């Protein structure tokens, strides 16, 4: 519940302040967001399966975003930034889909 409220609050804050993404963050923010979305879906799934743990959620959330951004950063340094970020997005997308499938199975039993 708090997470849901927090999400809504964050969206509202973003709409209110209309912040601009700093230049150094621009390549990494989208990937970090996808990673965070993956973490969030994972948290919901874990909660539905009754194995949710706040500490795991927080740590996985933070580390996922940081690692995703780090991978993209590394890719940029290696000159394969766009390919690597595509790869990261694909992997995270697959995970989001599997998490969403698990959530769906728990909620609707199908």
């Amino acid at each position: 519940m708090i997470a849901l409220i927090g999400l809504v609050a964050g969206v509202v804050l973003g709409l209110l302040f209309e912040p601009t993404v700093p230049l150094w963050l621009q390549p990494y923010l989208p990937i970090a967001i996808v990673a965070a979305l993956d973490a969030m879906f994972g948290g919901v799934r874990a909660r539905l399966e009754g194995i949710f743990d706040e500490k795991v959620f927080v740590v996985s959330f933070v580390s996922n975003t940081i690692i995703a951004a780090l991978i993209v950063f590394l890719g940029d340094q290696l000159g394969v930034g766009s390919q690597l970020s595509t790869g990261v997005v694909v992997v995270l997308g697959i995970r989001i889909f599997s998490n969403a499938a698990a959530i769906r199975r728990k909620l609707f039993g199908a």
Partner: protein
Amino acid sequence: MSDVEPQTPDEQAPEERETSAKQEPEETPGFLDLLRPRTTLGQLAGGLLCVLLGFALVTQVRSTQRDTTFATARQDELVGILSDLSQRSERLRGDLRDLEGTKAELERDVQGGTALEEARRRATTYGLLAGTLPAEGPGIELLIGDPRGAVRSVNLLDTLQELRDAGAEVIQINEVRAGVNTYFLDAPGGIEVDGRILRAPYRFLAIGDPHTMTTALNIPGGVIKTLQNAGASTTVTPRTRLTISAVRSG
């Protein structure tokens, strides 16, 4: 993170144990159970992270909507765009060179236009000389009275030739424009000029330098002397502005 292996309740901290213990009996909690507020530190941290996520999400969406092309592009994409632009610029530069060439040609053509203007001017000059155009300018008027009918065609021809020699450019005799092939014939009651019978007095209009022509006509033993000897009256009048309107066809 869902993929992390589930922690058993035994490993959990004591304060988290209580919350877990409450939901443990129902193995699969319902959706409404998800929404039940729990206020532990971890929950608050998760909520905070979700605030951050929502904020970042909206920010990113906004910035993506704002500047679609370059701000989110990666370095190699930008390099690709740059090289595309360089190629296009090179192509456009080639177009520019072509257009410059065309422009230069057109400018040369403008000089052709001046040549055309020059040709037109010379055509006007030749038209004046050939007698196909009306003319205007300084000149003299020579009036030859012939009370005794003594003026022959040869006298008029001499007059015409004298005027031409003196630099007359355009000559009109009565209403006949003199040309290169003008002829004089003695005719009953007058002189036939270019097929027309002219009668005295004969009036020459000549455009040219008035002083030169007057001098040429008045030289001793010249045209005027001959005419006067023949019994004709002559009057030379310099004019600053003569209009010769008679034209020859063709």
